[in-house]
């Protein structure tokens, strides 16, 4: 019964909200105010006519805390739906990264070769740098970035995770 003995899990939660001022602050304030973790959070409008935005939040906690997070999100007044993608079944998770790698000679060639393996596109280049764009599962992006570090990675920007359930049913 003790929640303290439960292990910490990672969950990806999709939240459909009214696209109104302050709604993101409400969600973030809920996480900070109650001491929940945010590993990643993305938000953008998804249905313009209906004024709905979709927030994808990746969080960690014990099962009890995760149930609390969902219940707390669901009782926010502008929230329409809360879906625990990790719990509901198979889902697809993607994140986009822009990676700037500076270098010459062998390292430059090796960076380009590995980018090819990871299906990363060159979005800008000079004689001594590349900017790669890669979109993958977050763990695969982590791997790509690890490989780029010794090859002269100087800067990196990631979007955070977006996710959607597999299959034909909608949220």
């Amino acid at each position, binding site marked *: *019964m*003790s*929640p303290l003995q439960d292990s910490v899990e990672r969950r990806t939660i999709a939240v459909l909200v*009214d696209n109104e*001022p*302050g709604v993101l*602050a*409400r969600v973030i*304030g809920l996480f900070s*105010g109650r001491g929940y973790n945010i590993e990643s959070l993305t938000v953008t409008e998804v249905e313009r006519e*209906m*004024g*709905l935005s979709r927030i994808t939040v990746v969080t960690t906690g014990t099962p*009890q805390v995760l*149930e*609390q997070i969902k*219940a*707390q999100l*669901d*009782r*926010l*007044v*502008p*929230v*329409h739906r809360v879906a625990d993608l990790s719990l509901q079944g198979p889902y697809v998770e993607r994140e986009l990264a822009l990676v700037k790698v500076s270098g010459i000679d062998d390292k430059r060639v090796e960076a380009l070769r590995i980018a090819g393996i990871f299906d990363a596109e060159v979005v800008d280049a000079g004689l001594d740098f590349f900017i790669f764009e890669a979109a993958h599962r977050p763990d695969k992006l982590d791997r790509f970035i690890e490989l780029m570090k010794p090859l002269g990675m100087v800067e990196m920007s990631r979007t955070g995770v977006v996710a959607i359930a597999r299959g034909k049913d909608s949220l």
Partner: protein
Amino acid sequence: MSATASQAAPEASSPQAASAAAAKPAIDSQADAYSGAEMVIKALVDQGVEVVFGYPGGAVLPIYDALFQQNSLRHILVRHEQAAVHAAEGYARSTGKPGVVLVTSGPGATNAVTGLTDALMDSIPIVCLTGQVPTHLIGNDAFQEADTTGITRPCTKHNYLVRSVGDLPRTLHEAFYVAVHGRPGPVVVDLPKDVLQTKGSYLEKDQVVHRSYRPQTEPDPSAISKAVDLLAAAKRPIIYAGGGVINAGPEACRLLTELVHLTGAPVTNTLMGLGAVPGSDPQFLGMLGMHGTYEANLAMHDCDVMLNVGARFDDRVTGRLADFSPNSIKIHVDIDPSSINKNVMVELPVVADAEAALRALIAEWKRRTPPSPKAQEAWWKQIEAWRGRDCLSYRQTGEIIKPQYAIQRLYQLTAEQEAKAGRKTYITTEVGQHQMWAAQFFKFEQPNRWMTSGGLGTMGYGLPAAMGVQIAHPDALVIDVAGEASILMNIQEMSTLAQYGLPVKVFIVNNQWMGMVRQWQELLHGARYSESYSASLPDFVALAEAFGAVGIRAETAGDLDDKILEMMEVPRPVIFDCCVAQEENCFPMIPSGAAHNEMLLGPDDKAAKPISEEGMVLV
């Protein structure tokens, strides 16, 4: 609120339909008929509001101008915005209707924050209208500008900044809908001054349908059936009911009492739930929790099935979580799914309005063959043995008034008066020892008679709350049971009492200490009484007179009854300075970090049970 059941949420329509309805224009002839300020008044009247508690200022002047030109709404001018919210809470809790507050921008809004937080913690429906600087100045650090929606976001159930007069009527109606439906709470509507001055079209209340907020009020029938299985099979059941039952309304309280009688189970109430079952009911074990009765807490600890209705397993109730009612199967009825499994994991959650759930539980119980009344015989024998400890006993000897005696006499004299003359008694409190003694010694026969700051523990709550109660119930006897420290936190409201001739009685249990702080320092901090002495107290009798009220002082036990009766007879506001024994502690007490079966019963008990270090870090 019972409103959740009676004013059923509009049928679950698609968001398109909802937004179409919300956007439906008013009748053409009414286009641009009202200024924003006039719409505010109209919306309040349409929502059935009779009284607004407020304080004017620059940003809300258009609303005050509109108020001046009408006779439907009564405005009560408080002396501090915090008091406006507490007064609205007192009004709401004693009537079951939402309380309404009107304050200006900046300091008006920030002063209201404590009251809003209090209402959030205790689930009290409040609509608080705040002025705001004109939209074109927002973000410019204008005079009396504050980010009100930002500041109040974590201390309201919901809040709005109205950016255009076109959004105003929908927002106002939504604010009332959100405040009273589901788990009630405070809602802030921030109103920029230019929006109040612009003309626009009004929308009727029933033209507004909320897009997303549809709290579940009806219980899942299979959960109800399982709950009745558990209750019927229980050998040692207990019903633990909280403020959710009071919020659900008098009918829910009646149903709770019926269920208690049907099942034959003992019942205990939280601080917020007092009055949900009659205090004199033989199955009522009194309040539970940190200063609850011995029998209530031990019954909670030893029960085999616990039915929680409308309570939230607050830390003041559970004590040490790991040892909270360790061998029971727990059923939790709550309208707020986030209250379930938050502190205590339960076997059977029931998300529903308390009234709907209780009705369903009773119907299901009546469909079955009732279990033998003998099943609980041993349990009741045990409970009677616990009751035999007489845990609230104290010794009144000599002429120095014991605080418990003062409160017990206040209860008995007001109860006798109510029985004889029929004048209803409403009790509010401040926060501290006097509050706990009032909770222990007053037996509330009905709901909505007891207003106290439970969750937030706001000193300064009681006087303004009593003001709100007296406005709603002009002929009732309204008493703020206070401490000499708490009362000074909103003493300025004596002026409001004088202005409106509100005959509120402030009964100060004056021990010249912040009594609960002193008690904790004695028990947990080696009797090092750091800053807890109430030095330089005013002469409360003279203070009463300065405010145009009546001052009464009681100094001896022999005088007490006569003085209390005198207070009750005076048709004016009274400050009653009841000088009591200074170092009395409030028992029973479950020290922080202890379990229900480790309670201290009295001064002789404390040495035997030293308080753990883990307990010391808890509040």
